[in-house]
């Protein structure tokens, strides 16, 4: 067993790493924060050295975000002290924290969709460079300096997640922050984007900035962090040295269990086709009249017991494909056959009753009634099916009972089934959704980013659930930005690019890097592990001329 630094933090959060290190950028001591019914932080102590990337890891709901919001002045701690650059401070609003050189990129984007990038960036900091051309110049300057590639006048609504992420970082840099808090910045990024982000971080570090970084992807953490602090159930349980620690050890420290892998090698694929998609087409007309092919002749078949993974940069037609399969939008052409039945024009409800399970990418928007109790959320999407209702009449008693079963079987951590879905952490919300969808023994499951923002423990459970159902003949369409997950779970891999399935790969041989390259449209046809991907890059200009 390799040696790695682990010790319970002494009560006084003195610098445990190195006495000769530069002064502390941030020191949190004895922080306690209570919410109704939960203690989010309990006597936490963290010390962050100047000019380092400090990673904060922990399960969902461990209290990481809360701690950072306290540091950023968005929450007031019930107890404890904060010191910035060795000075005791007390923040009553983020403005105070910003004035102290602290900036935060939140876990959920803090952007106003209807405003432009420029407006989002200058908001609150108008005194710095105004809101006009001076600000625009400054933004472009920062953007160039760090290679962020930000367009100041684009509407945020029109940006993809990666672009939004960069706007968030720019917002922080624009205010001249010296300490950056990044709360799960990589959850929605593809590998290349993550790499780029890390390049940015290193650059920042080189300039003497301090970064506090939260992530559930332990590999990344090891790659980029200088120090690691582990939080469990609201308290610091230890620190680790990224030079020596392994992901396995970190996971054990976080949850006290083994790090799961999405590996699933023994094949359960049968030759019975479950879902057949033929020549699915969808064109979207922009308001200004330009017609774009969002789905261009999609063809695939998923057999019983098969997981088909679709890799692709977000925004290449995945959302539209899912919506077409779910019947939430009607495609212009093509045939969808489920278990031999043509469902091309069936409404969503009929499809769900026919055996499609759905784990959407945006659980808050598409899978949950946040303000309703858990048991009502259990009914959602399956209101016509047993045990939720009989002959049009709801059966709340049975639904409640079944919800309790799901909570038990899927280890949903909740104080009860009467609490609202909003009061569950993201990971637990996801487990509830997976449990619900699996409870109706679907024939075909659409799983979009099933473990996004979910901690390692919950990830394992979700993967297990999918694997088990697959063994019993479930066909799965898996869409994920987590390439390890994609490669690990899938039996077949396809790459989607500009509304077409441009390439396929064997998950047994492909590497995430190769897949990532293919996703940029650089490769076509069958990807071989030995192939030079760039060799296949050709002739994909024709259909792009319109853009």
């Amino acid at each position, binding site marked *: 067993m390799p040696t790695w630094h682990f010790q319970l933090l002494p009560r006084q959060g003195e610098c445990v790493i190195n006495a000769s290190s530069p002064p502390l950028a941030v020191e949190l001591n004895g922080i306690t924060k209570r919410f109704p019914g939960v203690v989010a932080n309990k006597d936490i102590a963290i010390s962050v050295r100047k000019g380092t990337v400090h990673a904060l890891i922990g399960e969902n709901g461990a209290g990481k975000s809360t701690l950072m919001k306290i540091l950023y002045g968005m929450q007031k701690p019930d107890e404890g002290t904060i010191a910035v650059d060795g000075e005791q401070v007390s923040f009553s*609003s983020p403005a105070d924290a910003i004035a102290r050189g602290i900036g935060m990129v939140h876990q959920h984007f803090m952007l106003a969709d209807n405003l432009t990038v420029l407006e989002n960036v200058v908001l609150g900091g108008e005194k710095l460079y105004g809101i006009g051309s001076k600000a625009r110049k400054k933004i472009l300057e920062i953007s160039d300096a760090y290679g962020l590639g930000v367009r100041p006048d684009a509407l945020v609504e029109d940006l993809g997640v990666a672009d939004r992420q960069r706007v968030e970082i720019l917002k922080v840099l624009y205010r001249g922050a010296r300490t950056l808090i990044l709360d799960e910045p990589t959850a929605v990024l593809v590998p*290349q984007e993550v790499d780029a982000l890390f390049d940015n971080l290193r650059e920042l570090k080189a300039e003497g900035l301090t970064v506090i970084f939260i992530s559930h992807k332990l590999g990344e953490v090891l790659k980029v962090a200088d120090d690691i602090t582990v939080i469990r159930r609201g308290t610091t349980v230890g620190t680790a040295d990224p030079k020596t620690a392994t992901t396995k050890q970190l996971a054990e420290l976080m949850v006290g269990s083994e790090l799961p892998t999405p590996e699933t090698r023994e094949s359960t694929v049968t030759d019975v086709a479950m879902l057949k998609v033929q020549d699915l087409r969808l064109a979207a007309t922009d308001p200004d009249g330009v017609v774009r092919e969002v789905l261009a002749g999609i063809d695939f078949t998923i057999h019983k017991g098969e997981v088909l993974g679709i890799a692709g940069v977000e925004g290449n037609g995945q959302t539209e494909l899912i919506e077409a399969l779910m019947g939430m939008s009607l495609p212009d052409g093509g045939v969808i056959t489920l278990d031999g039945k043509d469902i091309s024009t069936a409404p969503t409800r009929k499809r769900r009753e026919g055996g499609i399970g759905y784990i959407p990418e945006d659980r808050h928007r598409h899978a949950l009634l946040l303000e309703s109790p858990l048991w009502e959320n259990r009914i959602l999407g399956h209101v016509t099916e047993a045990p939720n209702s009989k002959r049009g009449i709801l059966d709340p008693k049975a639904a409640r009972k079944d919800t309790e079963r799901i909570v038990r079987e899927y280890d949903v951590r909740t104080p009860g089934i009467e609490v609202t879905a909003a009061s569950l952490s993201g990971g637990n919300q996801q487990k509830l959704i997976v449990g619900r969808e699996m409870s109706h023994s679907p024939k075909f499951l659409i799983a979009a980013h099933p473990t996004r923002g979910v901690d390692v423990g919950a990830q394992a459970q979700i993967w297990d659930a999918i694997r088990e159902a697959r063994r019993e003949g479930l066909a799965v369409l898996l869409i994920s930005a987590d390439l390890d997950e994609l490669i690990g779970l899938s039996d077949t891999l396809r790459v989607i690019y500009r509304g077409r399935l441009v390439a396929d790969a064997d998950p047994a041989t492909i590497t995430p890097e190769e897949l990532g390259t293919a996703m940029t449209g650089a490769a076509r046809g069958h990807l071989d592990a030995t192939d030079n991907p760039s060799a296949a890059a050709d002739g994909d200009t024709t259909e792009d001329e319109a853009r």
Partner: protein
Amino acid sequence: MSTSTVSATSAAPKKDGGRRKVTLPWILLMIAGGLALISLVRVISGADDLTSVGQVSGALQLAVPIGLAGLGGLWAERAGVVNIGLEGMMILGTWFGAWAGYQWGPWTGVLMGIVGGALGGLLHAIITVTFNVNHIVSGVAVNILAVGFTQYLSNFTFDKAPGGSSKQSPRIDPITEITIPGVSDWLATLQGKHWFLISDLAGVLGGLVTNLSLLTVVAVLLVPATWWVLWRTSFGLRLRSCGENPVAAESLGVNVYKYKYIAVVVSGAMAGLGGAFLAIVSTGIYQEGQTGGRGYIGLAAMIFGNWMPGGMALGSGLFGFTYSLRLRGGSENVHAMLLLLAILLVVVLVWQLYKKKYVQGAIAAACAGGLFLWYTLTDSVPSQFVDAAPYVTTLLVLALSAQRLRMPKADGLPYRKGQGK
């Protein structure tokens, strides 16, 4: 950098650039087209009052209170507070405006009307922002209270005043009206010639410079002023951010409560000004029930105008114009409007055919045909339908225009500091 290439090549239909920017030339073109159409209808139908100086000036005067209520709605909703209490704030404006106006002169009245409306706004702000109560509930309560208070207070104030009663105030001195001497007459003469398009243009321009109350000028100027403040200043940016994503604003150190308060109080002040205008300029007295739902119409005009000052002004203009049409010419004007509608529907028909939407086209054709028949077979419209003209027109315009309304994202949603996700 690799990421930029990734996102640059991403294939999703980028929505940006897609939204047709409604630019100034576009608006001018549309206005010109509309005017030409109306002119055509006027020439065919002989309803010369359609674009007369009096018509336009009347329309303007009827549009102003609605527009001010709409501006009020805009301020509040841009900061994320739905304001259905505009009607009540307007009522307060009429009452306070008249109360101060008959005693200390019209301009004091205007000021007090603003104050009265602002008080209503303040109440709405306290309930919705501080106590986080459902905005519609609060608005409804403000409306009830405003009615109750003004009627109650009238018993003690106007009732005792000479020329007043418990339902009505004494007469208020008028506010100066300006008419640009030479120009106005010249335009009126030009309009009197009934030439195609030229006379109509003269009528419109004439209407805008004839018997123009100073308060009307102020009210009209408030539209661009609002646009400038909300879209061109950092104050406005902060205010709007509270309506789009208050948590994001909070995370950047913006005091969301403060901006919401300011916005709702200003909203009330605008509505109050609208009320004062009604009392002082439109009628010269306070009259119980005088607002008659104009607050709601203002709200409708704001939604019609897509939460933008220009659109809102267009919406209130439409209301003002159709009201004026029905009041001034009654059935003759509205009869001419049938023809206008029919022609518009033909335009829609052509557009639908061009877009290969044959079903919609057929519907448009049928409606157009029906209207043509109606127009040719009758020579007036029953007064009951004349009354409905403004509302039917609004519905038709909304139904026919492509709906791309986007209200502020966090409009009407509760917000509490430190509770954001």
